[in-house]
């Protein structure tokens, strides 16, 4: 058989009809013409859209850790402390009364939000944890995160220690062993009136 001169009819047909073929690809296709079938519809190299996944809890905590090292100034959290004292004043003095109901005050502090409170450790098993003081930034199931007066951030575990909050005339002691609950679940939980052995 004589070799055809130039492009044969079939090859020219392929070149016209298949869109978006570069020269290298054309050559490959023409070589395979005599052995394999050619798809005339050009397949788009489509970008498959991946669904954005939400960040896992672990990554969120790592991001928080990294971001908080910049903002460890104790004086910057002043407006947070003011907001907390106003919030608790509204909750304690119910109905415009001037005196605090002592029975209600216990329940109020169990259900209240503690972000922005000034807290101090009174007793604990670890001796070097005592006498730390600061404002609470975040709260999780087992830990408090605190900004201290010396402009550092410390993580304090809740177990095996006793905390204290001072607000105007009141002094509140919190036993950390009974307090190991997520803050969002603390509202619905009922606390027992005795301390189990």
């Amino acid at each position, binding site marked *: 058989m004589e070799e055809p001169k130039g492009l044969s009819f079939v090859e020219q047909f392929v070149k016209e009809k298949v869109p978006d073929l570069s020269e290298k690809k054309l050559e490959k296709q023409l070589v395979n013409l005599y052995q394999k079938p050619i798809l005339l519809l050009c397949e788009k190299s489509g970008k498959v859209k991946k669904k954005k996944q*939400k960040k896992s809890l672990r990554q*969120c905590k790592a991001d928080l850790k990294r*971001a*908080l090292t*910049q903002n460890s100034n104790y004086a910057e959290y002043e407006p947070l402390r003011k907001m907390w004292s106003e919030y608790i004043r509204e909750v304690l003095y*119910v109905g415009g009364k001037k005196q605090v109901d002592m029975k209600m005050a216990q329940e109020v502090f169990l*259900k209240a*939000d503690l972000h922005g409170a000034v807290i101090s450790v009174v007793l604990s098993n670890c001796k070097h944890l005592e006498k730390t003081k600061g404002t609470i930034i975040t709260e999780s199931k087992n830990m408090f995160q605190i900004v201290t007066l010396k402009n550092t951030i410390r993580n304090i575990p809740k177990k095996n220690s006793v905390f204290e909050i001072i607000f105007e005339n009141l002094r509140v002691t919190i036993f950390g062993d009974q307090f190991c609950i997520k803050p969002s679940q603390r*509202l619905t939980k009922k606390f027992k009136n005795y301390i189990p052995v």
Partner: protein
Amino acid sequence: MGKKKGNQSGSHLQKKDVYQRLNYLYQAAHFAISMQPVNKELSKYYTRTMKTLAQKNVVRLHPHVKRTICKHCDLLLIPGVTCTYRNKGKPKQTVVTCQGCGTFRRYLLNIDNKLWHDKPENIANVVMCNKS
């Protein structure tokens, strides 16, 4: 939270402490953005506790409040600081894109569109919070 609620004489609000706590967390999230340097992770943490609180206690958030929170990454959306507003055409709409994660929300501009919460016929009672 529902609209700002308070106590008229006779009307009772169940779960008042939940609403007060949600209110406080929302303000704390605004404070976290105003710090220098800007701390986006802290405000995300506060809005996330807000959402889980509302979920655990079966309390619905007002849709105007939900529209200022990004659905994907839980950032507070403040125009100019953390999000961008753009107008596009055909059909005319406003597009709000979050700068943290890139998700956007579209609102069609239509005069007849009104939220159910905004119509004055559907408001039964407005209660104002007590100030001591």
